């Protein structure tokens, strides 16, 4: 069965550079969530999209932006990278954000290292 695809798996950047993370949800899933997991930390919610519109916003820095495209894939854009941005970034998809009983399906994550 198709899963949530994230690319790249690993990304190394330097301070003040930009990065773009991509997420391809499971087919027919219309909701995408982005989470950030620092070393030894629990995943922290960043932002979510439902039907290409932002549906919720969490602890996402102003330097970050994201969008969901017409094919439902999503991109997380990160600018002016800081050392503290080094983390594992997870994308998750769900059949619908209205179905609170639905589980989230997570991708394998993108490991971002800022040097």
């Amino acid at each position, binding site marked *: 069965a198709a899963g*949530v695809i994230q690319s790249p798996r690993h990304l190394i950047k330097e301070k003040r550079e930009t990065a773009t993370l991509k997420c391809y949800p499971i087919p027919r899933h219309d*909701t995408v*969530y982005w989470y950030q997991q620092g070393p030894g*930390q*629990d*995943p*922290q*919610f960043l932002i*979510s999209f*439902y039907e290409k519109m932002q*549906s*919720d916003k*969490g602890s996402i820095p102003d330097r970050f932006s994201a969008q969901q495209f017409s094919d439902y894939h999503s991109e997380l854009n990160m600018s002016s990278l800081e050392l503290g941005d080094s983390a594992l970034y*997870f994308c*998750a998809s*769900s059949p619908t*954000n*209205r*179905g*609170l*009983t*639905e*589980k*989230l*399906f*997570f*991708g*394998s*994550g993108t490991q971002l290292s800022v040097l």
Partner: protein
Amino acid sequence: AQSVAQPEDQVNVAEGNPLTVKCTYSVSGNPYLFWYVQYPNRGLQFLLKYITGDNLVKGSYGFEAEFNKSQTSFHLKKPSALVSDSALYFCAVRVPSNTGKLIFGQGTTLQVKP
């Protein structure tokens, strides 16, 4: 505010013994509770969920969890642990709003020794 607490950073059990990973929650309204497991270099994998009904929920890989409303707990259990169960376990609550995001606990590392 919705929150989830996992009081133990690490749980150590011997293979074949029962295991319990603790989770307590604080939500307004009816909770939607989940357990996810994270293996090294892997994404979070769904184990089980409680929505309504029977307080004992059975999930993947022989895991189960017991919902206790009076104690606001949702402990993860398994009758007989396997070495391969060693991983990081997250309890999560689904926020009863329009967006349904998950709020995760701090995570508990389960170490099963042969």
